[in-house]
């Protein structure tokens, strides 16, 4: 039984330039205990897709979908109250910048208590003990004193650990981590990822890990979904996608990793993908990636490729999809 089932999800943002689709008709599912990595450049709709799941979309945006269900509960037609009950309890989330994601005016203890109360049915006593337990669980020493600290007194890594403690307080079924390490030092990044990995194994919770670093997902995710301009480019098992990428965009993302760069001694410049992610108000025709693609041909400019099964994965690229007219 899938934990999460998303079919044809579209997120629209109303702007002065008109209605833009930040997430364009994507479908995916997640089974219990599975880690799904979502990768793509900034502005590809990764975060938007996850906010849509939690009903956390910013103002002036709306979602459409054929199906959106969590544990067989229909989220599309659920009331705000039902969705709120799910949030922060069965589905929790951690964010990109831990320093600004904690409220500066309240102590860590106060903020942690709110999450603990969600799990323990507003039981007022004993939260302190549970809070200390949680802080120790995420590797914070002197947990006692930390409860009375304010966020600005702590480091970024420490704040992210506290966000994680809040996210696991309710033993959620699904944890969404939206670029959890982007704002942190490289040394801290590894620690946070290790912590997330061990907690995921320990609780057996499913996780959606959003990142623009495809290398990071290689160690963490069971499956990888590559997004570009709000659409899915390629999706499949991590080893298939990372070791044998087929979509030119996935290949370009992998080639842009500095790790891969250091192996090739002759390069003088860090490799990058030329061009920019398209402005959603002026989407290119045909395949969204074609203006930056090295392997584009005529058809790419005219026709939007469909997401199709190919070689143990789903891929949206004309290279692997011979035109149906030629087949007949």
């Amino acid at each position, binding site marked *: 039984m899938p934990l999460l089932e998303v079919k044809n999800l579209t997120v629209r943002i109303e702007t002065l330039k008109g209605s833009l689709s930040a997430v364009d008709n994507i479908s995916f599912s997640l089974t219990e205990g599975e880690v799904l990595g979502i990768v793509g450049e900034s502005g590809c709709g990764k975060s938007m897709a996850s906010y849509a799941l939690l009903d*956390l979309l910013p103002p002036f945006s709306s979602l459409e979908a054929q199906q959106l269900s969590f544990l067989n509960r229909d989220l599309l037609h659920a009331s705000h109250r039902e969705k709120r009950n799910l949030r*922060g309890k069965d589905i929790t989330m951690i964010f990109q910048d831990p320093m600004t*994601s904690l*409220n500066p005016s309240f102590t860590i203890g106060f903020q942690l208590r709110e999450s603990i109360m969600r799990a323990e049915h507003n039981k007022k006593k004993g939260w302190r003990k549970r809070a200390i337990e949680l802080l120790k669980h995420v590797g914070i020493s002197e947990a006692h004193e930390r409860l009375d600290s304010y966020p600005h007194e702590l480091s970024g890594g420490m704040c992210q650990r506290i966000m994680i403690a809040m996210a696991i307080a309710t033993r959620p079924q699904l944890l969404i981590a939206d670029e959890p390490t982007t704002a942190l030092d490289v040394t801290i990044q590894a620690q946070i990822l290790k912590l997330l990995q061990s907690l995921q194994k320990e609780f057996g919770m499913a996780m959606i890990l959003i990142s623009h670093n495809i290398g990071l997902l290689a160690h963490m995710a069971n499956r990888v979904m590559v997004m570009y301009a709000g659409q899915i480019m390629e999706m499949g098992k991590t080893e298939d996608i990372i070791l044998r990428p087929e979509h030119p965009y996935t290949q370009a993302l992998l080639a842009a990793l500095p790790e891969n760069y250091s192996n090739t001694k002759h390069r003088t410049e860090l490799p990058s993908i030329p061009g920019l992610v398209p402005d959603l108000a002026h989407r290119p025709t045909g395949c969204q990636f074609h203006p930056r693609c090295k392997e584009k041909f005529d058809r790419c400019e005219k026709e939007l490729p469909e997401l199709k099964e190919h070689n143990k994965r789903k891929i949206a690229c004309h290279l692997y999809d011979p035109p149906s007219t030629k087949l007949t």
Partner: protein
Amino acid sequence: MFRYLSQRIVVLLIAFFGITIIAFSLIRLAPGDPITLLLGERSVSEELRKEMTANLGFDKPLITQYFLFIYQGLQGDLGTSVITKRPVVDEFFQRLPATLELGIIALLFAITVGMPFGICAAVKRNSFFDYFTSFTSLAGYSMPIFWWGLVLIIIFSVHIHILPVSGRMNLMYDIEPITGFMLIDVWLRGEGMPAFIDVLKHLILPGIVMGTLPLAVITRMTRSSMLEILKEDYIRTAHAKGLTNMRVIGIHALRNALIPVITVIGLAFGSIITGAILTETIFSWPGIGRWLVLSVTQRDYPVIQGGIVIIASMIIMINILVDTTYAIVNPKMRKQT
């Protein structure tokens, strides 16, 4: 925090001395003098006139007069009124409760109406309610106080007869002040409920008039501060934690949005003492505002300069208090040394 406060205090002390100079010199630059007004139309000899001037100390050079004013002022003696011959300090503190009572009512009105409206306008941004609030607060901000006061009097006192035109209470109650706050004194003098309601009725119109400007400022400030905060990442976190909308807005957002609003409320309290001048004149309210206006027309130099200096020091103290509160509300400021 100590350094922050001491810096503020030094700045305010400099401002204080600036104010004494202005208060002292401005009224002397205006045409007319207290002696002429005291003598009225009677023709008196030049000697008698000189004698009176010397008695009041106005014959000394201006510089000497100024330093004498500061020297005595620092010892708590701001001189005596030329007209009533009573110490300025006594006259001031006798009238202060009336102004404070009105000011507190006005500010309470401004806060209890302004903050909820500001919060709702921010939460329901770009709705009809938001536009209505913005328009009304702009109107309130731009409205001349004396005109607004007269309009309210015409509507509620002249046409519908539900509220009194002026004064602090009906003449049938003759209450000797104890604290000076009539809302309290009616109970201390054992007058009971009818008198209390009468005093309250007299407070409504001047309270609204005096509170209109702070109301507009507080509403707009709460709205813009709230809008700013609602965009913050930690508000998204609070929503993601599954907290109710009430809790996210009323606790997580409001606590942060209040920081600038508290500053505005403090400043509004200062402006209320100055706003008293117009409101008290319209409603014949026996407070310091009307007292000052009266003393200007009588060229009562000691009252004017003394009154202004006391008001200025009060505003300065409020400012220090606001800065301290600011530091208490904002944990980031608290821990800095």
